[in-house]
């Protein structure tokens, strides 16, 4: 009998504790949305997109984050970042799971609102070489048509390269960028094809001392910031207004180098 009474009391206590926990969590959620500043939170979906977005041990970093934060804050909102798998970002945006997404490509824009007609930046594919073998002009086909070129397996190859080089070899595995550069440095390949030159060859890149890259100009893809269709029109308008007032990303990038 005593045992039953104890058990019943324990159940009541457990139910009470659970309710309290739920209430606390619910309160946190409600006030968390409003956050410390009392401003509406805007969720930005993103992923590691070097060198613009860097996912480190703590918070997200990079000039892309600085730019997005400034954009959201200057419109009067609070940015909350959510790291999303690359392949699901456009879907998250379409479903309204995030309010804003970056980076978004042209083909992914269908179910969203562009923040501006102008892309934030462009990605350009290219070939990376050991510095002593650098080829500055990829329009001179004779210089690279017979080279052994490696690339990360699964990367889309531009038709111009596929048509003019018969020695393209995919490389698979973890840390694929490092593998490509190691193979290049150890002369196991003449060149490495990359879908976007900038993350590989920039003055802050760890590969900068080893390689130099040339671009396939004319094959660039625009990259956008996009907003969810489910955002209030007033928020969409204020974000666009804020975007117009911000310095162009190129000028913003300059700040990062100062």
């Amino acid at each position, binding site marked *: 009998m005593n045992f039953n009474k104890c058990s019943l009391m324990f159940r009541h206590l457990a139910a009470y504790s659970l309710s309290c926990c739920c209430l606390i969590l619910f309160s946190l959620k409600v006030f968390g949305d409003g956050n410390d500043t009392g401003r509406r939170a805007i969720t930005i979906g993103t992923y590691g997109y070097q060198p613009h977005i860097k996912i480190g041990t703590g918070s997200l970093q990079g000039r892309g984050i600085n730019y997005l934060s400034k954009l959201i804050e200057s419109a009067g909102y609070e940015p909350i970042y959510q790291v999303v798998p690359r392949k699901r970002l456009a879907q998250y945006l379409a479903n309204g799971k995030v309010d804003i997404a970056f980076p978004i490509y042209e083909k992914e824009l269908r179910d969203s609102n*562009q923040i*501006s*007609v*102008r*892309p934030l*930046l*462009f990605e*350009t594919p290219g070939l990376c070489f050991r*510095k002593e073998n*650098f*080829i*500055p*002009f990829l*329009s*001179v086909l*004779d*210089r690279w048509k017979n080279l052994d070129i490696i690339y990360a397996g699964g990367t889309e190859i531009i038709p111009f390269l596929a048509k003019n080089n018969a020695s393209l070899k995919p490389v698979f595995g973890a840390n694929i960028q490092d593998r490509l550069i190691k193979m290049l440095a150890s002369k196991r390949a003449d060149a490495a094809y990359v879908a976007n030159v*900038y993350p590989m*060859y*920039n*003055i802050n*890149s760890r590969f*900068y*001392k080893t390689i*130099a*890259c*040339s*671009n396939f*100009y*004319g094959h*660039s893809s*625009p990259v956008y910031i996009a907003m969810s269709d489910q955002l209030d029109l007033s928020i969409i*308008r204020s974000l*666009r207004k804020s975007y*117009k007032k911000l310095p*162009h*990303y*190129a*000028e913003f*990038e*300059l700040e990062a*180098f100062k």
Partner: protein
Amino acid sequence: MKLSRLLLLALLFLNNKALGVDYPGLSLEIINIFMASKEVLFEKQAEINSANGDKSSLFGQLFLHEIDLVYRKNHGQPLPKADHPIKALLYQSILSVMEDNRALIMDPDLVYKGLIPATFSFQLSQRFSNSGYPVKIKFVGLRNNLVNEANNPDVWEYEVLSKVAASASEDSGLVQQVTEEKGRSMVRTLKPIYFSLDCLSCHGTVSDNSVNEFISKEHWTLINKAGFKMPNYQLGDLAGGVSLKLDVLGIQEGGNLEFQ
């Protein structure tokens, strides 16, 4: 046909004057800024290819200042202000292209970087023309001697260049026309470019080839710095032109180029 196009251009000019935008004038300004930036790139070749040293004048406001100096020299007036979104876009595009090339420009291990007026202007035209605005600019070459297939002229550009090439005058000037494309008026401008002495170091004859500068004549090569065969152009030959296409209705429909 010609007269109707001229009338249309005049009407557009007057109409746009009344609305506060002179599109033919704006087109010309855009081309002149584009050309001045290309000229600066030529002047800055030693700085670009140097291993070290101060390269700050190749970026940001300092680079725009260099363009201003060239523009003043060429046109007797300062670089136009960014008082129209298309001009602002061009300045932003110029800065972006130089930033895109920062790693290359700053690379101390590359003796020859390959950032030359041709590659710069191609990148600039791509950046400017793919920015989602109804305006396109590009360098167009002559069909029989193209180095870059992307510089292939369209029908209008080909007709204009053919007429310019056939004219007796060595320095035919600017051509502006209003054309129709899918029921829309396009203000088209083409400014012919002629080979100057500077250009011939890559586009001239074997004796002009800068690669041969410190080499005895018996070892001269026909291949220029870029890796192409010297095409044997002479001073004053027609090189091609800078072509601008501006979709007036597109600009007006776009609510002055941005979402409202």
